[in-house]
């Protein structure tokens, strides 16, 4: 048995206290391995975003522990968590997470500037080619279609070779064919590049491409049998 890349151990998250307290997550256990594409599906308000923010180290859980590659995350400093998100996690957010005043190519250049290394031109071009984005590399985000933007976001998420990718409703703004395309590409990344991918969604149609499905309802997270044949 390999170690899980990301593991949430008995996570509870409570907002507020006393009378008005809301428990967004109750004793959630979760793990994802390299090469695995996991979906978390649940209705609105069930705690999906809360789960992602805790996995990303953006919020601290009320109790429980998050492990990345076996290392506990919860008690790290703000700066260590920033570095964790920069280096080890790729994000694909619901709305576009691209920088509006940078061209597609410059989005990647920025990452290299921040990491204080020379621009990885070949890597960028290879990544863009894989995601069928070569023709738009000098376009600004507002000149791209919704599908192209999400594919750039995927490429951006992959750029630092993160061990885990967290996707928050990556298909929310897309029509069905484009959604299927994006999800297929994510599955492809997991299976061929050995990434651990966690996708939060409320779209049932997408889960057929995932290896493992968790359902979340009212803060209770439960692993279900895979729907895949």
């Amino acid at each position: 048995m390999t170690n899980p890349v990301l593991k949430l151990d008995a996570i509870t998250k409570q907002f507020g206290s006393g009378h008005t307290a809301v428990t967004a997550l109750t004793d959630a256990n979760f793990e994802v391995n390299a090469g695995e594409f996991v979906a978390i599906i649940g209705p609105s308000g069930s705690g999906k975003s809360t789960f992602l923010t805790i996995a990303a180290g953006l919020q601290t859980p009320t109790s429980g522990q998050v492990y990345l590659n076996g290392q506990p995350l919860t008690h790290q400093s703000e700066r260590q968590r920033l570095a964790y998100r920069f280096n080890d996690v790729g994000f694909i957010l619901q709305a576009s997470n691209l920088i509006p005043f940078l061209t597609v190519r410059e989005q990647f250049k920025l990452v290299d500037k921040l990491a204080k290394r020379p621009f990885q031109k070949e890597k960028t071009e290879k990544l863009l080619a894989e995601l069928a984005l070569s023709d738009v590399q000098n376009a600004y985000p507002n000149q791209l279609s919704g599908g192209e933007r999400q594919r750039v976001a995927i490429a951006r998420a992959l750029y630092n070779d993160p061990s885990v990718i967290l996707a928050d409703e990556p298909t929310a703004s897309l029509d069905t064919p484009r959604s299927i395309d994006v999800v297929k590409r994510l599955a492809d990344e997991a299976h061929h590049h050995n990434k651990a991918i966690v996708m939060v969604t409320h779209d049932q149609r997408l889960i057929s491409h995932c290896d493992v499905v968790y359902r979340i309802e009212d803060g209770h997270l439960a692993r279900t049998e895979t729907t895949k044949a």
Partner: protein
Amino acid sequence: MYLGLKEMWHEKLRYGLLSGVLLLIALVVFMLSGLANGLSVGNRQAVDQWRAKTVYLNKNANQSLAASQLKISDQTTVSGTHAPLANLSGTLRTTTNKLKTSASAFGTSRDSFIMPKVIKGHRINGKDQLLISAGLLDKGYHLGQKVRIGTTTHSVKIVGTYQTSTYSIAPTVYTDTSTLNRLKGSPITSGKDQPINAIVAKNSQFKSSDHDNLERLSITTFVSSLPGYSAEQLTLNTMIYFLFVMALAVIGIFMFVLTLQKSALFGVLKVQGIGTRHIIGALLSQSIAMALIGIGLGLAITIGLAQIMPAGLPFVIDWNAFGIYSVALLAAAVIGALLSWRTVANIDPAVAIG
């Protein structure tokens, strides 16, 4: 830096406009500085050229040269190198009244250390001779000309010129004490009872505590009590200081509003591990770039305007002051950007996931 400058490039109009505002502020700062310096030079150039350390005036004169009345003999009460100084402000005019110019006339002993060095013509070696500032040559005055000063009918002859010199915003002329007293129409024009206005000295002290009617002023005090001098400088400098506050406010507000506008984007950046320090770095590089553009163009335009300014405008570039004011404007830009620090730090990345 990359982030900040790329954004500026993409949003040229927005950042161009603020650079324009900073340019205007810098331009006004430099113009005021040039005027303040021009007025300062116009008032004190002659005093600076004396290279004196001390001035003795009548202690009832309220530190005013024109109001001070001393006698040649008062010089015996002070030590060190010193020179008598008689002063007359009036209209310099040719005997035909063809040329008329305000001038500050000084009378001192012919060989005193404040008598300017002649660059054309000869030193004063006889009665009723006058040296004029080189600046007066441009106005049509020349060697050998007979001129009068003030309302007198007594005329003197221009025998030499020296480097340009002004006092009380008027070009200076020098003569000997007796001649000046004749121009003034003083009853006594020779001997130790001749009236003078001041004693100008290098390192000098009173010889004894008994110096009845004299007051000793440092040259700095003397300059700051020149008529209007302190008020002018204070007014112009206060305007300059206000402009720094304005620059700070303009940049601070602009960067703050932009930060609020971009808080969603900054949240996303933070999710991706690009923290407050990088974001503030981007804001800083933008405000510094805008300040540099504004200051650079402001300097260039000021220098350009200085070339085509009417000669009557007392405008003199002081590179030291320009350097200090440039740095101060830059500092205002840096502080202005840093004012958004808390706002950036408080952006919660968790809101980008929802």
